């Protein structure tokens, strides 16, 4: 394999692995913050135990999200030096701002939160986790504005052989980035909702800590319902954005070969990429696709055949990823609704089948998040910056296939090992359930040493 293929593979592996941890961090930080606020406002110890139990699971995840994030920043320079040279003037800014504005906040206040239980007031302690939660989403905003620029480059001119920034506000207000932000962050919140519901279901099935896990489940169900509906709505707006700015991606997502007006939406489609047509197109909704693409039933949807073959993304991957993501999105919305309705009654534990189901579906939002990124990134190919720079022109010139093969092997081994450790610790601690807060335990948190220098 050549440097380009290996570097792409490595970016896919490292970004995909990073994004196992990010969605849960985004969502669970908010849920833990809500729990701790409830403890502060009600004084109910159950909420303190909730904060500690879910907080502990959150922390495994947070640490891995942080360390795997460094890899991505380094890789832009290590593997994609030509890209970095070409876009650094405009793409470097949001990354540097992310570190300065958001990452410092996250990493400083997480330390305060972990170690500060007996050092700062209860309110300040709850504020610390809120800052972590908000800073995590703020972090996502700047990263997604950077990615949004790769999807829809704005505010630049081509000068001195590179893309130079001429309008910072265009970068910051790039609607593509904002749609991506809301869609992605909300999808992360859904991951957290199903994470909490799944683990709560596990304990409720065993009648373990029923009050505790019912309260957790109820909170997560409401959170999941609201966020999964919002994921759907933002996804819909995001799709219009794609149809207008990246017609090739949209055509690949829906496997549209011929340009047509008032295009129908076919529920069942089997593409035949070799012959550039769909073998099966059934259960059509008249004008559905035009409506989806432009919120206008008569609008014209561009087909793939309008574009030269070398400018089309891999159709099958994009199409299947999008279909599965959308189907999972709908399913998660439905499950959240049922979960919310059942959790409103106090008889949650009398629906063992549903609880089992909620445990089984725990990985689904993770999968939806991963394939969502496949749609976004594979669907943009062959471009690394849409319409501006090809991925094949972006790879570093100074590195050899041997080097990248070595680093890819290293990442795969290291990340594989981390995944095993993470799953082991998460499962063990999730199964163990919350700890009992006796006065002695509470005392133990106190690190003494009043001897000042």
């Amino acid at each position, binding site marked *: 394999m050549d440097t380009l293929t290996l570097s792409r593979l490595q970016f896919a592996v490292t970004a995909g692995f990073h994004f196992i941890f990010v969605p849960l961090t985004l969502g669970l930080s908010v849920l833990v913050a809500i729990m701790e606020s409830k403890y502060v406002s009600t004084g109910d110890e159950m909420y303190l135990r909730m904060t500690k139990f879910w907080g502990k699971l959150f922390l495994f995840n947070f640490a891995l999200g942080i360390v795997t994030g460094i890899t991505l920043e380094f890789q832009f320079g290590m593997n994609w030096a030509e890209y970095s040279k070409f876009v650094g003037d*405009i793409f470097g800014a949001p990354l540097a701002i992310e570190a300065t504005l958001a990452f410092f906040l996250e990493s400083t206040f997480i330390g305060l939160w972990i170690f500060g239980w007996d050092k700062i007031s209860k309110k300040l302690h709850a504020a610390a986790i809120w800052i972590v939660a908000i800073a995590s989403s703020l972090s996502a905003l700047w990263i997604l504005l950077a990615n949004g620029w790769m999807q829809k480059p704005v505010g630049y001119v081509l000068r001195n052989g590179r893309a130079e*920034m001429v309008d910072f506000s265009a970068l910051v207000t790039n609607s593509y980035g904002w749609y991506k932000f809301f869609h992605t962050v909300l999808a992360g919140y859904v991951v957290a909702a199903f994470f909490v519901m799944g683990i709560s279901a596990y304990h409720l099935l065993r009648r373990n800590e029923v009050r505790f896990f019912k309260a957790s489940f109820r909170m997560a169900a409401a959170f999941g319902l609201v966020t999964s509906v919002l994921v759907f709505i933002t996804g819909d707006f995001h799709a219009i954005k794609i149809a207008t700015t990246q017609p090739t991606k949209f055509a690949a997502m829906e496997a549209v070969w011929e340009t047509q007006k008032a295009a129908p939406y076919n529920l069942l489609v089997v593409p035949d990429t070799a012959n550039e047509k769909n073998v099966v197109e059934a259960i059509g909704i008249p004008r559905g696709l035009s409506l989806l693409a432009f919120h206008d039933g008569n609008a014209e949807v561009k087909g793939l055949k309008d574009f030269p073959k070398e400018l089309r993304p891999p159709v099958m991957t994009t199409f299947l990823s999008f279909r599965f993501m959308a189907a999972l999105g709908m399913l998660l919305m439905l499950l959240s609704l049922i979960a919310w309705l059942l959790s409103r009654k106090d008889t949650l534990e009398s629906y063992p089948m549903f609880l089992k189901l909620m445990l089984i579906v725990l990985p689904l939002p993770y999968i939806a998040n991963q394939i969502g990124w496949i749609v976004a990134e594979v669907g943009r190919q062959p471009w690394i910056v849409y319409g501006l720079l090809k991925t094949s022109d972006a790879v570093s010139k100074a590195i050899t296939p041997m080097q990248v093969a070595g680093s890819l092997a290293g990442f795969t081994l290291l990340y594989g090992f981390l995944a095993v450790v993470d799953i082991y610790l998460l499962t063990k601690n999730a199964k163990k359930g919350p700890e009992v807060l006796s006065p002695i335990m509470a005392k133990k948190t106190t690190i003494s040493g009043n001897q000042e220098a």
Partner: protein
Amino acid sequence: MELQIIWFILWAVLWAVYFMLDGFDLGVGILQKFLGRNEAERGAMIKSIGPVWDGNEVWLLTAGGATFAAFPTTYALMFSYLYTALLLILFSLIVRGVSVELRGKEEGAAWRSRWETAFCISSFLPALLFGVAFGNIFKGLPMDAEGYHGNLFTLLNPYGLLTGVFFVLLFITHGALWISYKTAGSLSKRASNLANKIWYPLLVTAVLFLVHTWFATHLYANFLDVPVLFVVPVLAVLALLGIKIFSVKGASLKAFAASCITILMVTFTGVTGLFPNLIPSSIDPKYSLTIYNSSSSPYTLKIMTVVALVFVPAVIAYQAWNYWVFRKKIDPNDMTGKGEMY
């Protein structure tokens, strides 16, 4: 002042602050394995950096991000030329972060001991490799119009290795002084003794570094042109002497402050010598990456200057507050062995 010069200074400050802050984390990481007589002592050392190491590491990401935003060509070439060395640093930083976080997540001496070993190695490697990388940057990389003509092994030249050893000793001393200041009892005493002893090889290495720099690099040229700049290395040397003076007296906070200044001034000495290069070419100066031929556009630099001037002081303020919240010394005798979250 020219924007490129402002960003050169900011670039230097970000790296210097990173080395000053994460330097003691790395030092503590190396030392905990050897200095701790039991699990409680090792736990106390790790706990002493627990609330702050993560925030310290972000200075590295910001230094990296700032290089990307302000000097994209340097960022691109430096990271791709030093691919394997940076990869090793990256793997180490990942393992280090995981070790700190996971060590206390499970009961059992074997589990903890393994993560302590991992923590030690993954702290040692970045300390060494950052030194090797910066030594080679001071010296210049073999690069011309064709690209880069080196590899991991050409980086391991005598000057690069000397700088690496210098960094390791600096960070070990820095970490020992931190432990001596932040912990109580015999652990603190032992850390202070270690800093006292290791100071001698540090001094010898520092002298060797200053002498070898004369022969291996062009760093002194700027100082000879503008002799007043010699104040920077002189301050570095004075601070290095200060470490010993305060450490012998048992003034651990002052000794630690002196080692902070040493690290800052050592970094500034190197960077002052580099100016206006970011990475000199060892083949021909015309291929050097300078702040002028590798910078972003004035517009981007202006935006980034505003961002830095508004937010970096804020970061310094809340990080300082965080240190203040955790100002109490940690007594290994009070370590329960079962920390709340850790």
